[in-house]
């Protein structure tokens, strides 16, 4: 009778996939990844609320926890070990420049450059913005209903930011992604749209509204939401805000086995910086790909299973028929 099992050597993987999900900063609640229920998802369509950041390079995990022995006796010898500190870091390079990858790879808040009002005074993070237009009822995550006169202002290929007006809130602002922390009220009514992650490309424009090329991260716009054009993005070196996200990294082996690295809380720990990779290793061409460099500090959570404080979970789902 033929064996129906085999010994699978160490996983052979091509690259690492990265997924991030917003942490509810106000409630201090990270996104949960449950490998017992979600381990077999299609890598191109992760389960909500996880957002795919595509393939990454130079993924390095660094466990910085320290254990020290309790010495006893003469001469002293280890009696027990205790964990003196709990820390871990993750570094990686993103292979694309998007709103999300830029935001994750910067140490401070990441802002949208709103389309400026005519004649507005220049400002380093974007001039006073052109007036926002009101989103109508009937909108979804991929379609924004607008009055026909408003819709005509946004051609296919435009980028738009969709969120509520700023009305003097303080603390963490932005939902579901906290994009900034305000100690005192500001006067900019567009501030939330400056820091919102509800940003998308317009694929079609009609008299009824705008069809978006990809769903809004925050889902269907809520009542009172308004829309503005976006020229690009800006972040700053400095400031006091730290991005915090839940991170999930997946290695898929040649036999279909999967290794999951789930970090409930990751905070960016370096400022915005890039690395340059020549496109051709064999020539002296100056053409190079500019990659976003990211480094995160893993923050602890308390595991409700047993009350232990941890910073990362590593899960392994073996290949079918492989010995375990």
């Amino acid at each position, binding site marked *: 009778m*033929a*064996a*129906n*099992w*085999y*010994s*699978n*050597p160490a996983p*052979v993987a*091509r690259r690492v996939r990265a997924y991030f999900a917003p942490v509810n900063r106000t409630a201090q609640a990270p996104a949960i990844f449950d490998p017992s229920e979600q381990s077999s998802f299609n890598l191109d369509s992760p389960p909500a609320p996880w957002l795919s950041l595509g393939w990454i390079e130079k993924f390095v995990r660094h466990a910085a926890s320290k254990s020290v022995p309790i010495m006893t006796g003469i001469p002293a010898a280890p009696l027990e070990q205790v964990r003196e500190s709990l820390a871990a870091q993750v570094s990686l390079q993103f292979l694309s420049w998007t709103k999300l990858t830029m935001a994750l790879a910067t140490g401070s808040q990441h802002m949208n450059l709103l389309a400026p009002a005519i004649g507005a005074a220049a400002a380093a993070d974007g001039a006073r913005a052109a007036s926002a237009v009101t989103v109508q009822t009937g909108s979804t995550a991929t379609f924004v209903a607008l009055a026909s006169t408003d819709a005509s202002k946004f051609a296919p290929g435009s980028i738009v930011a969709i969120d509520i007006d700023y009305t003097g809130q303080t603390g963490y602002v932005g939902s579901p992604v906290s994009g900034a922390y305000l100690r005192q009220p500001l006067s900019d009514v567009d501030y939330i749209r400056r820091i919102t992650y509800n940003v998308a490309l317009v694929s079609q424009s009609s008299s009824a509204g705008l069809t978006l090329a990809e769903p809004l991260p925050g889902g269907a716009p809520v009542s009172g939401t308004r829309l503005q054009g976006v020229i690009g993005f800006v972040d700053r070196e400095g400031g006091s805000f730290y991005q915090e996200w839940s991170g999930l990294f997946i290695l898929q082996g*040649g*036999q*279909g086995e999967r290794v999951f690295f789930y970090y409930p809380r990751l905070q960016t720990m370096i400022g915005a910086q890039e690395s340059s990779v020549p496109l051709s290793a064999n020539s002296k061409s100056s053409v190079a790909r500019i990659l976003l460099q990211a480094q995160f500090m893993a923050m602890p959570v308390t595991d409700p299973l047993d009350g232990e404080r941890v910073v990362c979970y590593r899960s392994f789902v073996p*290949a*079918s*028929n492989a*010995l375990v």
Partner: protein
Amino acid sequence: MQNAKDSFYVALRTRLIAINPQRTILLRGAVRPGIVVEDAEAPFSQLPDDVFILRWLGLGVDVDLDSTMAAEECDVIYQTCGTQSFGGLDRGRALSQMDEELMSIIQPFYTPKLNFISQPPATMLTQVFWDEPGFGPIAIQRDRLARTAKVLVYSYQEQGE
């Protein structure tokens, strides 16, 4: 190792049928998908145009693992003179189309390993997987353009192989 080679070929053939069923070859009186294994056909005096030829070359094994791993080097050779209707002036475009088709059928970079000795083929326990293709430069022979792409195909030996 033959099962891995067979599985790789059939995976590429199935994917080619899906993306371009018009790419065919008349071989031994039968119209077949336009991808053949060179060592499983009568020797060609001249490689046929507008089809993919799989030529198996190098072999490496790692016997120190729990399951022996085999790495088999496969050249995917293809060439074209363009079409008669354009007098061959579209040969560059025809080769580009074959480049794109190869990029499409090579993904995803794995397929289940099958044993084709039995009918229907029996699904084995492991998967065959491979690396990204390394495309060589275009070779020009008068009005014929040819290219070779190298692919390393990996597999684990199972009991009974």
